[in-house]
């Protein structure tokens, strides 16, 4: 028997495993993730089809099938949301909203113990409402919040840690590009996922704030509260930060109220921020820069989406996801235990991989397994393992996984947010930032545990919208 015949006689699950193994090798040697996935997917299709209909026809069918995917997968209406969210993020810097927000937060909550830390967390959470990117949020707040904290006598490690951790809030609070990508891959409603991120994002911010207040209460020389603002000064600080509330309002009204699509909400938000940026003095050169950056990031995200979907198309033929699901559900332990192991695996993987790449590569196999763990595709809340319906489970798992991926942005060895803060503030070494961010690991672990134990935090808003 020749090698070719042997390859042709392999069952589809073995083919799936070999091709997936090949893809992982490609990813590890540094082939761009989108192309590693596309290549594996194409080779898998060739393998499956030539086993069925001979090599020559098999290759042609595989080429034709692969050739339809980039265009057809990219021209999906719900994906049009992504560039609008990215554009909002790049324009937000020009609109000068960050300083206004920080000033307002300082005047409103600065009197609390550890008040500047709390103000940083809350203003970063507010800024997250116009920015979908953690790293960018950390960079901006490192510039404006750290100097003020140092002036007041806060520990530089703590100040750096607060900023690095606060940046992670951006990925849950809408608009979040990563939640849109999750929704596309698992074929769930984009609006429901965006809304679902709202409460967990706010919850994370409150846990951070609580942690800071506790630290300020228990440690000596922590840093003084900022007092002395009267109510008139507090209200004066609001108008400059108003556009943020406006954009949040638009997104909530559009999606929650069902009066517009998420893309329309994103576009309206981008339009408003653009007007403010123009008023603040942005001109063609800056706009051109923002458009180039937006286009580049958009291409990056779309390329990895179609690349991975080419691999997913092959997976569908190879039955690998269902085989993995069968194996996961047959494990001799409670479904919750299995879920915890899956999340821990993400925590480890996230230390070495970019969040978007990690989620896109793993979800096609892991997501069906999690749904199967819960009891399958059409399970009701009463019959399920986690006490939530299958739609609820997909939203809930999405939020937890994204929170997990963000958690990895502040963990060594390559917690990008920490490197960014250290890059912006020469007086803080990377070690300082990692040390300072440590308490927030605990806060995040508590948040993740709470989200896992109480799916209601995630599902309350989408359920109010009648979406799950």
């Amino acid at each position, binding site marked *: 028997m020749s090698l070719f015949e042997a390859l042709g006689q392999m069952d589809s699950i073995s083919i799936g495993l070999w091709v997936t193994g090949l893809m992982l090798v490609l990813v590890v040697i540094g082939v761009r993730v989108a192309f590693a996935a596309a290549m594996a997917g194409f080779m898998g299709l060739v393998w499956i089809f030539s086993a069925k209909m001979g090599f020559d026809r098999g290759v042609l069918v595989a080429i034709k099938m692969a050739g339809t995917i980039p265009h057809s997968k990219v021209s999906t209406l719900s994906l049009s949301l992504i560039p*609008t969210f990215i554009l909002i993020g790049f324009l937000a810097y020009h609109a000068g909203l960050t300083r206004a927000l920080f000033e307002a937060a300082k005047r409103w909550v600065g009197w609390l113990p550890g008040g500047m830390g709390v103000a940083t967390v809350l203003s970063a959470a507010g800024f997250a409402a116009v920015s979908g990117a953690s790293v960018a949020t950390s960079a901006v707040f490192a510039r404006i919040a750290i100097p003020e904290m140092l002036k007041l006598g806060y520990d530089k490690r703590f100040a750096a840690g607060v900023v690095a951790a606060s940046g992670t809030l951006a990925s849950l609070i809408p608009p979040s590009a990563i939640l849109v990508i999750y929704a596309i891959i698992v074929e769930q409603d984009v609006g429901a996922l965006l809304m679902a991120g709202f409460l967990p994002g706010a919850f994370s911010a409150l846990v951070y704030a609580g942690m800071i207040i506790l630290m300020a209460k228990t440690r000596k020389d922590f840093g003084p509260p900022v007092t002395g603002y009267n109510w008139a000064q507090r209200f004066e600080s609001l108008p400059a930060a108003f556009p943020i509330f406006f954009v949040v309002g638009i997104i909530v009204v559009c999606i929650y109220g069902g009066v517009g699509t998420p893309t329309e909400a994103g576009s309206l938000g981008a339009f408003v921020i653009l007007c403010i940026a123009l008023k603040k003095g942005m001109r063609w050169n800056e706009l051109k820069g923002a458009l180039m950056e937006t286009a580049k990031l958009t*291409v990056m995200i779309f390329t990895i989406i179609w690349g991975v979907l080419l691999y997913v198309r092959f997976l569908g033929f190879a039955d690998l996801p269902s085989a993995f699901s069968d194996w996961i559900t047959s494990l001799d332990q409670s479904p919750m235990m299995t879920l915890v192991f899956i999340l821990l695996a993400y925590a480890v993987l996230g230390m070495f991989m970019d969040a978007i790449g990690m989620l896109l590569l793993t979800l096609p196999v892991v997501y069906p397994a999690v749904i199967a763990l819960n009891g399958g595709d059409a399970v009701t809340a009463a019959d399920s393992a986690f006490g939530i319906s299958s739609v609820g489970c997909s939203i809930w798992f999405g939020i937890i996984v994204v929170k997990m991926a963000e958690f990895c942005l502040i963990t060594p060895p390559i917690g990008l947010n920490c490197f960014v803060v250290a890059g912006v503030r020469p007086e803080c070494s990377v070690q300082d930032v990692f040390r300072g961010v440590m308490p927030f690991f605990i806060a995040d672990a508590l948040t993740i545990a709470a989200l896992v134990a109480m799916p209601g935090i995630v599902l309350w808003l989408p359920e109010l919208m009648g979406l799950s």
Partner: protein
Amino acid sequence: MSSSSRVLGDDSYLSKIDRLFLRLETVLTLAGGIVIFLLVFLATANVLGRWIFSLPISGYIDWVEQAMAFFAFLGIAYTQREGGHIRMDMLVGKIQGRPLWVTELVSVILMLSVTLVLIYGSFLHFLRAYQIGDSSMDINLPIWPAKLVVPVALSILALRLILQIWAYSRAVIAGGDNPIAVPLIEDAAAVAAAEAKSLLGQDEMGEGK
């Protein structure tokens, strides 16, 4: 984990072609950005028109779906040139010199091979739509232009990959740490610092200082 990497240049042919080609890629990427900009206006006009005058734009969905291929593909070669497609640099970040350039060369050759396959496949996809005169659901826009964008953009990517094969081959022969016309690998700290710097430049302008 890569966003934007440094690309070195000198006065060799390779570097000249690289920079000339970059101009084309920049124009295409900016065109993609402008399509995004127009999308924002279109969607805003659509939602406002519907709210205020109960008059949505006819064929809005068709226009958006046709526009998407443009911003999703036009910048694909530029993103490759700038090292903007994400990858895992755990291994390649550890090695240096010739072994690194050999790995990069292999990786780019593999990318080129899958790109060539997709150029052919997506061209067939375009050809079918063109020959049967396929059009969109609502207002019958022809679909072929959006489908043609894919093989065209991928062909430009293929040319960029061939340039990179040339550049990495040169680096394999010459050795050393600073090859031209390819994105250099930087550690997380350098990437973060560069990114922060570009953002802060913008932020400062935004604050009007």
